[in-house]
């Protein structure tokens, strides 16, 4: 008996050693993995900072020559070396805001259809279609804008006939591109609302629409906002399609039918030919402004979402609340 016990004890000891060895190698592996992951994450930040530093360095000449006036200057004239970025900022923001205003209701409705209201049989195909549209290369949208949309808008210019390429054309094309993105993200957000909350609403006598309005949408608010911001971000940065249909004219016009210009478009158009150092430097400064605006905008959007989620999390703390474990009142 005692011999047996010894053998068992030995076996146990061996098992322990093995377990320890496994545990050690596991710990090492976890450390290495964490190190690599940290490095990868850090490299993202380094990349952003490097990009920022590079653009800042390259745009120094422009900053020194024009100062803050660069942002307010309305004239962009490479031939006479006069550079002001306002037309691009104006064009970028106006076209993106317009695109969002057009795409938001449509994207929201598509998301609701796919996630909630549509017949079950059509939801899958429509959802797949939306995702496909979100993945279509932007140049294709641009071609459609040039070949179909612009001719439709031709002759609508405020100052006589135009080519149809205009701020409006750019906004419409952008809206078309942004809509699938918004719809796809919003659908995922709506589908993430817990089923038991929908059941609660249904059992309380809510119709599908009432449950959607009073339960699902309020619960999904932060995510819906994030989807909107994602769409806006995509519109701000979009280059190709916009360049093809906006008309590329560095003027600030009150008419949506007049051509305009965006920051991304001017970079794509002029960077390759900018032989004059001041011209190149001014373009770098436009890029810098675009980067800063985008980063600030994203930080702001994340901040809003995070604040909302934190508020929610604060309200959702687990653990016994007062009164629950105490005596019955």
């Amino acid at each position, binding site marked *: 008996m005692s011999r047996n016990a010894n053998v068992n004890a030995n076996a146990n000891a061996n098992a322990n050693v093995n377990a320890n060895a496994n545990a050690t190698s596991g710990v090492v592996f976890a450390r290495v993995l964490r190190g690599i992951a940290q490095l990868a994450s850090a490299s993202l930040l380094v990349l952003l900072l490097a990009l920022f530093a590079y653009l800042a360095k390259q745009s120094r000449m422009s900053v020194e020559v024009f100062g803050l006036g660069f942002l307010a200057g309305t004239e962009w004239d490479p031939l006479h070396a006069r550079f002001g970025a306002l037309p691009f900022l104006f064009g970028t923001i106006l076209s993106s805001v317009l695109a969002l205003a057009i795409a938001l209701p449509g994207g929201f409705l598509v998301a609701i259809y796919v996630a909630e209201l549509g017949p*079950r049989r059509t939801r899958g195909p429509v959802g797949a279609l939306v995702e496909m549209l979100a993945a279509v290369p932007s140049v294709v949208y641009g071609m459609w804008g040039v070949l179909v949309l612009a001719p439709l808008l031709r002759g609508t210019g405020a100052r006589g006939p135009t080519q149809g390429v205009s701020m409006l054309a750019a906004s419409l094309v952008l809206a078309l591109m942004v809509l699938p993105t918004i719809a796809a993200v919003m659908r995922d957000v709506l589908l993430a609302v*817990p089923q*038991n*909350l929908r*059941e*609660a*609403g*249904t*059992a*309380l*006598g*809510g*119709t599908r629409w*009432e*449950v959607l309005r*009073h*339960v699902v949408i*309020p*619960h999904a608010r932060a995510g819906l906002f994030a989807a909107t911001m994602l769409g806006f971000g995509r519109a701000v940065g979009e280059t190709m399609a916009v360049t093809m249909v906006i008309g590329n004219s560095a003027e600030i016009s009150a008419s949506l039918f007049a051509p305009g210009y965006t920051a991304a478009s001017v970079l794509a158009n002029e960077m390759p030919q900018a032989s004059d150092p001041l011209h190149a430097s001014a373009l770098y400064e436009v890029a810098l402004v675009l980067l800063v605006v985008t980063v600030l905008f994203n930080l702001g959007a994340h901040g809003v979402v995070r604040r909302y989620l934190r508020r*929610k999390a*604060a*309200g*959702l*703390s687990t*653990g*016994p*609340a*007062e*009164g*629950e*474990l105490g005596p*019955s*009142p």
Partner: protein
Amino acid sequence: MSTVPPSTPPPPHVEKMRAENLGAKFPDAVALRGITMPVIEHKVTAVIGPSGCGKSTFIRCLNRMHEVVPGATTSGDVLLDGKSIYGSAVDPVGVRRKVGMVFQKPNPFPEMSVRDNVLSGLRLNGIRPASPDVVVEAALTQAAMWDEMRDSLDRPGGSLSGGQQQRLCIARCLALEPEVILMDEPCSSLDPIATARIEELIHDLRERYTIVIVTHSMQQAARVSDLTAFFYLGELVEYGLADVLFTRPEDPRTEEYITGRFG
């Protein structure tokens, strides 16, 4: 074995609801077969049985929540006050207002305040009460949580403890002034103290409402119910007064179940 319960209480008990040859299916399985049983007004009816016996499906058929699951269908009929709730002219939304439901996992609207949770059923139905505060106080009082909640009406529903959340769900259900309350294992995620409170509450609510409770716990069924139905494999095996069913079951399967030989 006859499914017509010989020990069904005689009149003057009023039949509030009645299942008539009720069947229920999921796309890939049959959940209920030929259930015929009355639900007596102002009584607590417990539905017991092993997991998968169809007890939850049964009560979900009583307020037309079963059909909310994609592909789920019912057959037979359910009567409420003698009228079919499955008739072609019946609006399921109206049925659910009269026959409220409390779920297994407490599901208050997490970011809505306690007050708004109580009022949510009314809002969902487009009703604006003249004096919401009165509604809130009345519902929370009935759910035995007014005293502990009166100063926390603005707290989000999700911040309450599990037991409080479940009582809030009951209050939310009561605010709609239902006639029947269905409870699907309402205590299965709660600790014993919270469970005891809900059981007390069920006892009190019987005065005003008709209650059908599904429970996994035979002790709970014995404690809270006036009548008990034993379901097995989608069929009603035995139904009768709780003290009779638990002490002198007629069907051997019932006896095996309540003595813990299976399930």
